[in-house]
């Protein structure tokens, strides 16, 4: 991936580590959208996602000279991001009266979450609606594993490193998260008299 000056990611990381703020600006431009998207999924809040993304990128700038392998910048950045998401969620939880309903979503947020115009092969509108709702009910720890694994395509070993947990814990969280999503969907369908899927196939995590 190259920045606007044509330098590739590794060159940008090296330059930024040496103090080149413009190079870091290019790195920000390359990564900020994805960082925000991942943070949005983990925290479940637009406001918290902005906070976590900003803090992660600032921390990355501050600590970049300590990154030994420039090729691992992205994984390193997402590790910082995941931790910032945890911190930010805890920060918001300190606000009494806000932990319930504080982040009531605006219409735009709902549109963000329920982008029903985007087709997903094999998944109908109602199912996507239910699935997104089920995702919100996962804990921040489970959402983090799911987001890093599926959004960023990080292997579970990398996910575990990013979150400072054992690989087995990452695996079990992913398993639990998928099971929770399936169970939630089945419960919704059952309550609405729709056929409940007994399919348990698909690639295992």
């Amino acid at each position: 991936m190259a920045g606007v000056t044509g330098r590739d990611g590794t060159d940008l990381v090296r330059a930024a580590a040496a103090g080149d703020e413009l190079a870091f600006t290019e790195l920000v431009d390359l990564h900020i959208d994805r960082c925000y998207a991942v943070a949005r999924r983990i925290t479940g809040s637009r406001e918290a996602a902005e906070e976590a993304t900003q803090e992660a990128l600032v921390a990355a700038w501050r600590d970049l000279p300590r990154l030994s392998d420039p090729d691992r910048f992205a994984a390193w950045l997402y590790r910082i991001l995941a931790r910032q998401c945890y911190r930010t969620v805890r920060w918001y939880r300190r606000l009494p009266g806000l932990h319930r309903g504080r982040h009531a979503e605006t219409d735009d947020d709902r549109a963000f979450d329920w982008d029903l115009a985007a087709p997903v092969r094999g998944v109908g509108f109602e199912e996507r609606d239910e699935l997104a709702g089920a995702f919100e009910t996962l804990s921040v720890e489970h959402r983090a594993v799911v987001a890093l694994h599926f959004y960023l395509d990080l292997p579970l070993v990398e996910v575990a490193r990013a979150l400072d947990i054992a690989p087995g814990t990452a695996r079990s969280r992913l398993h639990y998260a998928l099971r929770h999503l399936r169970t939630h969907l089945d419960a919704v369908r059952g309550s609405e008299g729709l056929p409940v899927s007994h399919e348990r196939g698909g690639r295992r995590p």
Partner: protein
Amino acid sequence: MNDHDIERWLRSKIREDEAVAPDSLRLRTLDEVARTTQRGARPSPLAAMASISVAVAAAVVVLAIIVPLLERDGPRVGEPTKPAPAGTPVPSPTRTPSPAGTLDPGAFAPDVAAVYEVGRRSGALAAIDGDVWMVSDIEPYYLRLDPNTGAVTEFSLGTDSGPGAEMDADAGMIWASVSTTDFGPDRLVRIDPISGEMAASVDIGATYPRIGAGYVWALLGMPEDRGTTIVQVDPASNDVVRQIEMPGECDEGHMPTGLGVWCIGSGAAFRIDPETGAVEAQPDLALGHPVVEAAGLIWGLNSDERTVWAIDPVAGTVVAQLPMPDDVELLPDAVAVEGRIWWTGHGSGARTPILLEVDLEAQQFGRTLLVAEPNYHITTDGSSIYLPVLRTPFVARIDP
């Protein structure tokens, strides 16, 4: 739907999500990067060029109101802060910045009277004896702001400390809660409003210290924790004298008054006798989050029901329940100023930060002031209202 369908849906979401990162986030981030460099945490030969880049870009978006303030002659964060013992002034950032009026408050938000740059990212505020005190919400510092001169004195919470979180000032003392580095509850600290030094540290993981009824009252743990235990600290000894477990979940907050301490939630309400610790249930008053005491009444917010409520703590009765105005989302923080309450929130469909007036005599909503960011932890010195501008090193003053 099987696991594969779920995976496919999850992977598809990332592509949709990426389109919505707001431009203001990029600009704010680059601005903070430049500020980090200026603090000396990351020396950069290109800082000046980047700053210009940020300033130019900011002119076309929301941050255009922020960046010009940074470029003025007002305060800058100076040299790298040297480690200092907890509670002692940090020498280098003590400065005389931004006398009120040197920054352009009108560019900040229409109803802001003055803006102070305080050098650390804003957090909870408390006012006492003409000074405004603040804890940074992400750095282990607290500071004193003289709103008349704009002078700021900064104090360290300790090099290994997490940041401060909540703060209250009354009866000649200041108390703040301090977080662990990952924002868990860590301890309470007492700050001397004269010297600014830390007078005591109470090693208990409590949040939301509130001064009243002769004691300091805090919530053990985090507000979201199940069950509620109120911590009572005696300011004469700075010791915890009681931990009072509530017999029900009054998890929305606590409010000391002259007639006792109230712990109120949506499901339960209790009055605590400050001398004996005895707890009396008040089931009819379980209305939601208590926010501010004004004119002898406790005023609070019920976000679920979208109401602002008031109770008479003497009679134990509900005095008012005002439906929140349409198109307004109020937050659980407010201050009482000269017969009125000013409530923080959003207007215009959750887009515009506001202060909404409640006329105490008429018990109805009044004027709406346009302010900077959505705010929590606001304070008043009895005439002006001070707002931490979240995620920035600014404090805004409103003269309602």
